[in-house]
């Protein structure tokens, strides 16, 4: 059996180094074949008919004219038996809808799909589909949607999930003990994922075997759901997700387009490609739900938190699902008395999906602005208030953390950022004001099983790493190859990688929840160690010395001082077998401790009080994510997280016309993700490594999500520091800034 608990690494040779991506050249030069780039012989192209109304019944779908259009080969709608596939889970294991349900609950919902010889023909044909709709009542206001008189989207109303109701201690008692109680309502906008590669799949049948190329974060969940819905054995469904251009959580599971492509490929006996346009991808493949959050906080004069009461509503769109934002309220700061009540509301909008730390940037926006407000009212430095309330224990799981670097993040960050100096500096005179802000954050779950990896060692000393994990552009392949190289001493150039293919690689969960490195690198390490153990055993047998006395360095195995010596090529068993196969399985997490990553971000902004422009001048990202596996990909995650957070703070939001219930900014110039001009060159990243050898065998915790959780709040706090005005509803746009400043002037 592979060794599940190897000794922690000490000094490493290649792990941790800023190694360039092993696939950087393919990705940058355009040579990499993304699913979107795949063209198979005889392939057909799909396009989707979408409901233009937020809430409507489909009365009739007339495909006859579309089917007569040039190049059109087939179509599917709710009338087709094979399309009777349940969709969108509902409480109690029921489903809330079908693939082409005739009750449409958002503008952009799928009504039918068409395939044609060319993409243009398919799009043209979609325009010839005649659909009769009966429009139904709706409200786009998610807070109003929970009122009893709101038009219901589903039988039973618009409540999307059982409300969350968490109590710890007694908040009434906590507020009674407090010297200061503040209560505020904060709101966050709906953010859209907008990965560079849009959404879609290519499907192809060989007899009764289905192969799908999907742009996905997890080939195995997609395989599972597909097999389940199409009533096929797992062994006959192969999902490949090699190069993919980002997902941010929107590509964690099976999407309708994949099923539609598979059904149409079967119907036409031709490969089918179905990719969404950019505009479609704003409507129907997820978003970060908007939230309205009321937070009441009680604190003693010395800064000790006595009670936190959080009431939140999240907007999940047209179908059931939870969108909870209150985790950090329960766990980030030590607080004996907590009450968290959360509800999720359905509105006739595109359904939410996981988005880089689902719920966390929202909850952070409330909690960490509140901490800032409390600090000011108490006359305390916001850093000191946070240090005062540091919790070395996970209050949700009631266990100590394996490591929790919040104090280091705050104090070392403050030093590196020049926090005290920056706060003491004048805000500026005239119309340009400067301010600094800080916010901490944590992510709510660790890396974990399952993950199985295989490492194959060939006679020529080259190695094949076989793992199921996706590489979303984050550098997974590079980091995992470094792990193999670290253990076997093989240079990266001689490591081949097979990944994200259910037909050839081993099971792992989807790449999400900041857990890929922490879930999969221990499995990869175990597989490499398994190979190493086998090599040393063979050498020991051949050299007739104990295996423990031997060391492996690339292809050389030698005893103490270099003798005896044998190369792996000379190992007789390997000569016969040609390959050694090492298997690694991710071991369990500690049961008596909690694993959580933490971050603290510092921001400086400049506000033009005449024009309302807010410019982020610089940021520092402090992270306790365990071991840094690759300094370059680590920094990359943080820079990306800050970029996405700056967008969330200043420009990004879905704009919905409430009269028609449709999104008006479903394109890349009206939906404003930041450009290089909006991101300051001065973005610093500082990891704190506490040598946490308890969390897992590579000492890693998560990074991807902590990298974006506190960004917007740090910016908001800096804005407040500059202006003395708090904008509680994001994003902080010139329009909001000018209106808020005008109010202050009175």
């Amino acid at each position, binding site marked *: 059996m592979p060794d599940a608990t190897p000794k922690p690494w000490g000094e490493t040779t290649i792990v941790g180094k800023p190694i360039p991506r092993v696939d950087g050249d393919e990705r940058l030069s355009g040579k990499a074949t993304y699913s979107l780039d795949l063209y198979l012989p005889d392939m057909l192209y799909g396009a989707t008919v979408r409901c*233009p109304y937020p809430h409507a019944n489909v009365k009739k779908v007339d495909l006859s004219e579309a089917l007569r259009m040039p190049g059109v080969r087939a179509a599917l709608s709710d009338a087709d038996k094979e399309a009777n596939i349940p969709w969108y889970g509902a409480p109690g294991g029921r489903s809330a809808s079908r693939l082409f349900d005739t009750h449409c609950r958002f503008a952009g919902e799928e009504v039918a799909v068409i395939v044609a010889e060319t993409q*243009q023909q398919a*799009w*043209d044909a979609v325009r010839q589909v005649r659909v009769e709709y009966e429009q139904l009542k709706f409200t786009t206001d998610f807070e109003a949607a929970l009122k009893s008189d709101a038009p219901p989207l589903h039988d039973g109303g618009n409540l999307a999930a059982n409300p969350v109701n968490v109590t710890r201690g007694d908040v009434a008692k906590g507020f009674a003990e407090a010297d200061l109680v503040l209560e505020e309502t904060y709101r966050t906008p709906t953010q859209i994922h907008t990965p560079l590669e849009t959404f879609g799949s290519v499907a192809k049948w060989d007899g009764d075997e289905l192969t799908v190329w999907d742009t996905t974060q997890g080939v195995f969940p997609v395989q599972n759901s597909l097999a389940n819905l199409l009533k096929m054995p797992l062994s006959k469904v192969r999902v490949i997700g090699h190069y993919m251009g980002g997902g941010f959580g929107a590509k964690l599971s099976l999407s309708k387009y994949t099923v539609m492509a598979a059904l149409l490929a079967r119907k036409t006996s031709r490969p089918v490609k179905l990719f969404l346009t950019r505009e479609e991808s704003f409507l129907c493949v997820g978003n970060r739900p908007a939230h309205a959050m009321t937070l009441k906080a009680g604190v003693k004069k010395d800064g000790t938190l006595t009670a936190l009461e959080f009431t939140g509503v999240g907007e999940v769109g047209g179908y059931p699902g939870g969108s909870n934002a209150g985790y950090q309220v329960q766990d980030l700061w030590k607080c004996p008395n907590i009450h968290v009540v959360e509800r999720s509301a359905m509105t006739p909008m595109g359904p939410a999906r996981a988005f880089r730390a689902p719920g966390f940037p929202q909850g952070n926006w409330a909690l960490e602005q509140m901490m800032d407000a409390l600090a000011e009212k108490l006359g305390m430095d916001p850093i000191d208030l946070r240090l005062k309330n540091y919790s070395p224990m996970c209050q949700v799981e009631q266990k100590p953390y394996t490591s929790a670097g919040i104090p280091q993040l705050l104090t070392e960050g403050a030093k590196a950022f020049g926090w005290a100096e920056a706060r003491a500096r004048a805000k500026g005179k005239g*119309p340009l004001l400067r301010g600094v802000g800080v916010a901490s954050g944590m992510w709510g779950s660790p890396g974990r099983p399952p993950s199985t990896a295989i490492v194959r060692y060939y006679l020529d000393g080259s190695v094949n790493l076989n793992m199921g994990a996706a590489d979303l552009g984050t550098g997974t392949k590079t980091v995992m190859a470094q792990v193999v190289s670290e253990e076997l001493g093989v240079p990266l150039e001689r490591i081949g990688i097979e990944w994200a293919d259910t037909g050839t690689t081993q099971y792992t969960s989807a790449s999400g929840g900041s857990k890929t490195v922490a879930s999969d690198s221990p499995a990869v390490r175990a597989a490499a160690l398994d190979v190493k153990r086998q090599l040393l055993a063979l050498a020991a047998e051949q050299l007739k010395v104990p295996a423990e006395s031997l060391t492996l360095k690339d292809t050389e195995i030698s005893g103490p001082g270099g003798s005896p010596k044998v190369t792996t090529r000379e190992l007789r068993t390997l000569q016969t077998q040609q390959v050694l196969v090492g298997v690694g399985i991710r071991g369990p997490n500690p049961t008596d401790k909690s694993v959580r990553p933490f971050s603290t971000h510092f921001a400086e902004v400049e506000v*033009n*009080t*005449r*024009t*309302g*422009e807010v410019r982020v001048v610089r940021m520092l990202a402090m992270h306790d994510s365990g071991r840094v596996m690759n300094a370059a990909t680590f920094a990359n995650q943080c820079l990306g997280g800050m970029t996405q957070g700056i967008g969330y703070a*200043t*420009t990004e939001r879905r*704009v*919905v*016309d*409430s*009269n*028609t219930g*449709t999104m*008006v*900014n*479903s*394109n*890349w*110039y*009206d939906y*404003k993700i*930041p*450009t*290089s*001009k*909006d991101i300051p060159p001065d973005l610093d990243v500082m990891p704190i490594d506490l040598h946490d050898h308890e969390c897992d065998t590579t000492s890693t915790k998560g990074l991807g999500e902590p990298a974006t959780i506190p960004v917007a709040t740090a910016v908001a706090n800096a804005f407040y520091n500059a202006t003395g005005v708090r904008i509680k509803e994001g994003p902080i*746009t*010139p*329009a*909001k800034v*000018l*209106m808020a*400043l*005008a109010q202050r002037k009175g």
Partner: protein
Amino acid sequence: MLRKFSYVRASSIKEAVTAAARPGARILAGGTDLLVCLRNGILAAETVVSINGIKELKGIGPKPGGGFRIGALTTLTEIAENKQLPENYTALAQAAAAAASPQLRNQGTIGGNLCQRPRCWYFRGDFQCLRKSGDQCFAMSGENQNHAIFGWDRCAMVHPSDTAAALVAFDAKVTIAGPKGVRTIPLASFFVLPKESVLKENVLAPGEFITEVSLDAPRPGTRSVYRKVRERGAFDFALAGAAVVLTKSADTVQSARIVLSGVAPAPWRAAAAEQALAGKRLGDESIAAAAAAAVKDANPFGDNEFKVALVRGILEEVLSGMA
């Protein structure tokens, strides 16, 4: 996705006029706006007439008798980076540089920039609004934060062009070729407000197109600035902008031209602000008076109220910088 159309690549102005006079013809310059409108079904075209083969429409050069001509096909990048235009025309270069993104500026032309269709998100979306011959303006009770605070009537879109504001501030003229020959008119009278028509943004008749934009020789002592405020640092239209052209002697403003972008269905001249400055020393008092005068007649109607403060703020900033 594009509907079928015939394509003419004209090699002379005459040929282009003939082709453009056909019903349903559209002029194609850089295509950065036209192709998107066609793809998204905002415009229909029977014939697309490319003017890119007409050499005389290209480039910037001096005019006989002083001043400059800018051919309709001159790209925004050429204008932004041009060394021929004297410094007095800084506002024009700044406006061109503030438009869109580097790729779009390399491809987009000045003629196309002046004739681009509105960016109102209803107009660009699947909404059959007044400007698309529908029967309502969705912005009136809808999402109107980007909409006009001046000069609106039935339709409240804002003219999207940055360069238009700068050019109007310089009293630029446009030369128009058409079936009836060639005419030259002030750019200020080129644009059409909704009270005249909600279906077109300019006076061009079928078959007509811009061949060049001309500028007079600058008056000595003229300085100019274009300041644009947008939510994002690039690839974004103006929330509001101002082209300010001042001629000063010593401290005193002899003449001022202030034209606003992003706040009206056409470049919007802030005449009251100009008057508040004329003959005055440029200082806190006159600047405050001018900024206030600029928005005296503002008529916000919803979420665009912030633009009133924004215009004031922009003018305060620009004028203070020129004092």
